[in-house]
């Protein structure tokens, strides 16, 4: 067993894990952060996407021990309880989710994109999200949601983003 210390959603967390334990399983099973979903464990579907030091990574392809000392953001860390951040709210307004299984990964991939490029065009968005599979929506509403979120984030004095 190895000890792991890392920051998760701004809180210092620690645990003891087998070296083979994936980051996705560590987040889900040890920390109870089940918003990180596991869709393939093959690094293909993107459902387990989290931010590692602000960059989107597949949590199924990392071992928990590799995240030692790093800062992880999961979907649970995007907004205060009972609130939605601007990207989540845009997803809701655009009906950018159906079953919701890809959604946490999609949100974090969108955050990764918007951190690098506050004004992406449609092709940029489609390219940046191409590592995250959504089997329900056909993507159009997701692209619209990311554009909406980007536009609202660029607004000088953004109104209160999260309605509920």
């Amino acid at each position, binding site marked *: 067993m190895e000890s792991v210390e890392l920051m998760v959603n701004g809180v210092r967390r620690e645990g003891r894990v087998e070296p083979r334990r994936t980051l996705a399983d560590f987040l889900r099973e040890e920390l109870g952060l089940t918003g990180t979903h596991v869709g393939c464990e093959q690094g293909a579907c993107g459902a387990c996407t989290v931010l590692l030091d602000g960059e989107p990574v597949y949590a199924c392809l990392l071992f928990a021990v590799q995240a030692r000392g790093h800062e992880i953001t999961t979907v649970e860390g995007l907004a205060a309880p009972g609130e939605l951040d601007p990207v989540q709210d845009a997803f809701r*307004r655009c009906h950018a989710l159906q079953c919701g299984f890809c959604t946490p990964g999609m949100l974090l991939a969108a955050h990764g994109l918007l951190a690098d490029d506050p004004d992406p065009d449609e092709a940029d968005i489609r390219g940046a999200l191409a590592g995250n*599979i959504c089997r329900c929506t056909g993507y159009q509403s997701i692209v619209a949601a990311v554009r909406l979120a980007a536009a609202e984030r660029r607004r000088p004095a953004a109104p209160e983003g999260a309605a509920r």
Partner: protein
Amino acid sequence: MTGEPEEGRIGSPARRIEDPRLLTGRGRYVADLTAPHLAHAAFLRSTVPHARITVDASAARTAPGVIAVFTAADLAGTLGPVRFDASIPGMTQLVHTALADDRVRLVGDPVAMVVAESRYLAEDALELIEVRYDELPPVPDVATALDPAAPALYDVAPGNVPYHDSARYGDVDGAFRSADRVIGRTLRQHRYMAAPLETRGGLAVHEPAGGELTYHASAHAPHLMRMVLAAHLRLPPHRVRVVVPDMGGSFGSKWGITREDLLVCAAAVRTGRPVRWIEDRRENLLVGGHARDESLHLEAAVRADGTLLGLRAKLVMDIGAYSVIPMNPAFFTLALRLLIPGPYRVPAYDFEVSTVCTNKGPYVAYRGPWAVETWAREVLLDIVAGELGLAPEEIRRRNLVTPAEQPYRTAAGWRLDGTRAPATLERALELADLTRFRAEQRRARERGEVLGFGLATFIEPSPGGAEFLAMSGGGKETARVRVEPTGEVSLFTSQIPHGQGHETTLAQVVAAEFGLPYTAVRVVHGDTDATPFSMVGTGGSRAATFGSGAATRAARAVRDQVLRLAGGMLGAPADELELAGGRVYVRERPATGLSMVQLAGMVSLAPAYLPPDTPTELAATATYDGADGGFAQATHCCWVRVDPGTGQVEITRYLVVEDCGSMINPAVVEGQIRGGTAQGVGGVLYERLHYDEAARPLTGTLRDYLLPTAADVPPIEIVHLGPEPGAGPPDHRGVGEGGAICAPPAITNALSDALGTEITQQSVTPSFVLAALRKAGATLADPLDR
């Protein structure tokens, strides 16, 4: 309450009630559930397609963390043979054990189950199980299976054909005798699958003292599952409860009950521990449910002017090695045979079907399990048009059943009424501006660019009306509505939302009956101890019609109770009362009224002050038979550009013109249409389950089985015809399956147009495109010369 005051009224794109929890990672999918002393199951699966086996699991039984190891022999006393006596004439029941006993029939066949303290330890122990495989000749495809020299997968089905049936409607011989031309092709769909992003899974808890079994499962026919689990585990059905948490998609694939469901429950019964199993992606690709692999030989008898006189249809389905319960693919052919003429005038046709066993994954329901009728018919119509020198749209115009001809008695004897497929075609053609496109296509061709256009028209039973339902094995649906002490309303539905937004759309229809905000309606679903019985659950594009029909009727019954109670208390007859905004008042004296909170509170908490015959709760159950439900219909148009160098296909424009009656929530409708269409795009251009000549699967990851990404699926324009002026009461028709049904023929017809060649298979890969371009020759450079 959220948003605009009008948000939530029927017809508004109300934001979904389920979304805040799903967007914040607070959804609860089956893999997120746990239980005290939870144990984890994993399966050892066959590595060969066809063999006699002997299993030695002794080393695994003492491995670290192992609670139990089961082989078929270990479970003989707990779990009966897998069977479901569906009453389909002509079908042979393929009975087998849940774990393979002495024979495996595909790569992925479960041979042993380990239950351990963690999934990691369970998988470690799998490696200690020894299996000796004495290989049998593989049956990789239909041609091999039908060879008299091939081994039979089941002794009860010699020749590997467990189901054969035929039907004849009208004077088919006469139609073919009097035809100017008979034009036929064999049209081939490949094996592909639903591939929901969440795989299958379940968590079983058995209480030995009371004998109760609770199974939390990612599945959308929980009442049926309860009966199947009870029958196989020899438990009384009322001691089995199935609970469905949030579900990460299915598209039909989780409708049936699988061997793993039975095994996980058996493991809980035998170990006395809660047991959870979550399918991994490789398992899902091997045995999680394949679909679509069939060929339809379709012949059309036509006059020289394109008038259809009759059809002959011969279907062969590759159903793989096992069927999930109870959905033997034979069942799908009951609706399929009725739908072969689609929205067209076909006075006579016949139909013949064989299902064929091979050493491949099980064939299950996938978003329009009868879809081959639309794909094959729409492809053949383009071919017939080409041979007769007609435009694709013209042959459709000449054969579509017009509104003036309805009600129209189809050759199979059911009634087509109120369908508007011709209107979807005409509107699509207006928007498509084909004259301009054809000119552009010619100019592009001169520049060496390859463009194409294709269309397809279809109807989708949703649910099809009384006669169609009776002939295709339809059914009723029941809902219960109850006013809570807070004045809010609960709906108990047998729908199982897994992306369709029923918590929102059904709340919208119930809220409308009470004049409440839709957020004041709680939709309770997915618990066999709480929700009305339904064999179907969610499937067959039923929710819009059946789910909302039952909910509306139950809500109206409760509304009547509310008005009667309020009338007594206000001293006014019910017909002088209004119910709006959660308040009952006298129409002439709006200040005189009672809120639903007051009424419900009185019923619950102060019954002594009410008349003695007042019910103890404001609640009602109602059933809807779907008899006045009809069809949804659409025309899909697809524009493609083909790269002659790489064979890559780009969909440059995609248009859907559809009519589903009155929409409850247009954002949900459009999501269903776009999502289904995207699956059609995937099916034609990307997705294909490959097996080699020895029936060994080659697609074990999502890097081999390609699902379309945001970079692959084009924007999809949608035009709703909307209810006809003067149409009757709100008529909501389902659109769940249509996108996936109608997209493949629109796309393959567009590619056929682009490449100037007939396309009689549904899978169109870059290598197929390049080969077609080479064959067409024309002025295009051969890419292999570069």
